[in-house]
């Protein structure tokens, strides 16, 4: 009895010490996260509850509670920016995932010159976004731009189009450029996922007489699910915060027809110098992205992530 009690107390003590050690070991990491992630976030949240306008220093920096958010939600430009962002995500992410999957499957099949093929596919992703956006802008700009020449050549256009002065057509270069730029990234992640699938499974399936489509549906897709989820998460979060591409390509125009949330925030912060209001926009962008991440992990990825862990 007493023996058993001693063991229990000793193991409890041990466990406590272990826990302490564990905490001590993660502390630096927690500290770094707090410093680089939580602190700026908290600062922005605090700032978003102030009236802070560099153009009106005589108004000081009073605490205004949620007034910036109230103004934000009654701002039609904000609501439109939310719509544009949602549209951008809804179009580019599925396209990139679909194209990326096709490319990854293709690359997975290649036996010779694999390395070269991968480098070629990855190339667009390696180009800095601002540079790529500038090139796309040149292609769509002016009557003599590549896009106009091409479409005039095949007879799809009668007159050259002024893409950036048309609230609908201005989306075309934006969406195309993003799909061109980010599909390679998706391909890379999915290719890594494909290579984790043991070949033995395919051989067994083939022995059992499964066709190509069956093998894809019953083996490839389920086993690729974790990679697909991670990719979906990355792409959605990235697309939600899209900035540089639109900034260089359309500047959010014509009017504000292609303005996403991040550009709206930039405009309020750095052009308008409204730090409080701009912080409120930034917080909203953060919250939306955070909710998406949470939803993905909760409803789609939980089981898979656990399994893998």
């Amino acid at each position, binding site marked *: 009895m007493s023996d058993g009690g001693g063991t229990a107390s000793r193991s409890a003590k041990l466990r406590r010490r272990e826990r302490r050690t564990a905490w001590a070991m993660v502390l630096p990491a927690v500290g770094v996260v707090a410093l680089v992630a939580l602190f700026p976030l908290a600062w922005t949240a605090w700032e978003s509850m102030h009236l802070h306008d*560099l*153009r*009106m*220093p*005589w*108004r*000081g*920096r*009073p*605490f205004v509670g949620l*007034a910036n958010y*109230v*103004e*934000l939600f*009654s*701002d*039609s*430009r904000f609501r439109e920016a939310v719509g544009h962002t949602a549209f951008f995500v809804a179009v580019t992410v599925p396209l990139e995932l679909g194209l990326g999957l096709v490319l990854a499957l293709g690359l997975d099949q290649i036996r010779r010159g694999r390395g070269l093929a991968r480098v070629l596919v990855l190339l667009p992703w390696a180009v800095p976004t601002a540079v790529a956006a500038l090139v796309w802008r040149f292609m769509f*700009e*002016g*009557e003599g731009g590549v896009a106009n020449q091409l479409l005039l050549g095949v007879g799809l256009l009668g007159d050259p189009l*002024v893409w*950036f*002065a*048309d*609230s609908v057509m201005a989306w075309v270069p934006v969406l195309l450029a993003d799909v061109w730029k980010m599909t390679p990234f998706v391909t890379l992640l999915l290719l890594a996922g494909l290579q984790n699938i043991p070949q033995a499974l395919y051989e067994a399936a083939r022995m059992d007489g499964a066709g190509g489509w069956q093998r894809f549906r019953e083996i490839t897709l389920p086993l690729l699910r974790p990679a697909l989820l991670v990719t979906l998460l990355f792409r959605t979060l990235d697309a939600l915060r899209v900035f540089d591409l639109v900034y260089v390509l359309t*500047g959010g*125009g*014509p*009017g*504000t*027809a292609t303005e996403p949330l991040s550009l709206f925030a930039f*405009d309020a912060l*750095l*052009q*308008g*110098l409204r730090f409080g209001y701009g912080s409120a926009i930034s917080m909203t962008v953060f919250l939306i992205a955070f909710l998406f991440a949470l939803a993905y992990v909760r409803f789609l990825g939980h089981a898979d992530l656990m399994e893998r862990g």
Partner: protein
Amino acid sequence: MKPARHPLTILLSLGLTFVGCVFEDEGVTRVTISGSAVGAEADILRRQLEAFQEEHPDVRVEIRPTPDAADQRHQLYVQWLVARSPDPDILQLDVIWTAEFAAAGWILPLSSFDPPTDAFFDATIRANLWQDALYAVPWFVDVGMLYWRSDLLDSPPSSYGALLETARTRSERIPHGFVWQGARYEGLVVTFLEHLRAFGGRVLEPDGRVRVDSEEAVRALTFMRDAIYAHGAVPEAALTWQEEQTRLDFQSGRALFMRNWPYAYPLMQDSSASEVAGRFDVAPLPAGPGAEGASALGGAQLAVNAHSDEPAAAWRVVAFLTGPEQMLERARGAGQYPARRDLYDRPELADALPVDPERARSIIEAAVPRPVTPVYTQLSSILQIALHRVLTRQREPAPALREAADEMRALLERVELRPGASAERSDDAVPRASESDAARADAPAAIADPPAATTDAPAATTDPPAATTDAPAPTTDPPAPTAPVSPSPAAPGGGGRMGV
């Protein structure tokens, strides 16, 4: 405590010794100036600063290069000035920034230096007044002009109607009739203001009321839109163009008319680059159904940083650079129009400028200053979006202008410091605001009264030039802060803008 020397002290004294070696004279004052640092402008500036230093061996002036794009320069200035950097001492300002910088307390009132305001064009002085005090000295003037093809036409059109007619019935060989700056940026506001003035409208009343939703404004904007889509006189591509794109279009012979600033003239006379050299001329902007034609007033001014360590020396540099001979040199070297009125009688100017000085003077005298307010950039941004939406056919002129006007009213109301508002101010207000709270509490009205440069501009002169850390005290008796007469019923933030 033993007298240990801090390493920093040693470093500092070493640094000072070094500085002392470079500037051998003991009593040398260093002053820095920032502004355009490229091309002919930079050469002239360098030359003139050398001349200044010969005359004043006790002052050394250095140039701080800044980006040439106005928005970027503005951002950089704000970063410096918010951080209260004493450097650069002298700032080249765009004409629409003076009120903003003055209201923020970033630049010094210059009245105590007794600037020769009478020598300058009235409009250029008014654009640099804030609370009746002068905050910047006009350096050169920019005015919008109508460039027209003198090889294809006998005379320039005198009205927008005539211009439209000529542009519409142009020969097939000229792809574009009339080109102007239509991208979503400040230039679009300028183009619109010039149309608006010819149609007899204005953005703000002299008392500060927003009038951009008036009947005249709707007509002017409708005219601009129809010139693109209904008449094919203005190319749709102009909606993505700034000054340079319009110049390239006109100088390659693709347009009959162009609205642009004077800078384009010498460039397009260069026959190695321009296909229209010797085949174009400039004229005042045409009249409209409501009024004479008028161009928007642009140009550069020089101001002194409120945190400058050497405001007196900085002023001497400003006074020198804005002197008559320097302005003439600028006109000769860079084609920039002097801001001093009497120079237009000088024969040297006639040789320097492409335009007859008498005509140039009348264009400048008729020029319209843009609203003088510390929130000009925001007003302009609201207007830019509305105009661009209409011109790209996303909205109709009337509702778009009505919404823009509501938004502007809400903004102006937000700017205004209402009585008692200071009570709401929290403790962590920026130090500057609390330092001179009493002086500023009722100071900045949203809009400066553009007309009537009143004779008494006294209060600002109480500020000695040396008191650099003090806020430039605004006048103690504010010149009638102008509340918008028809305030938007909505809370700040403009929930009222949906009232279509």
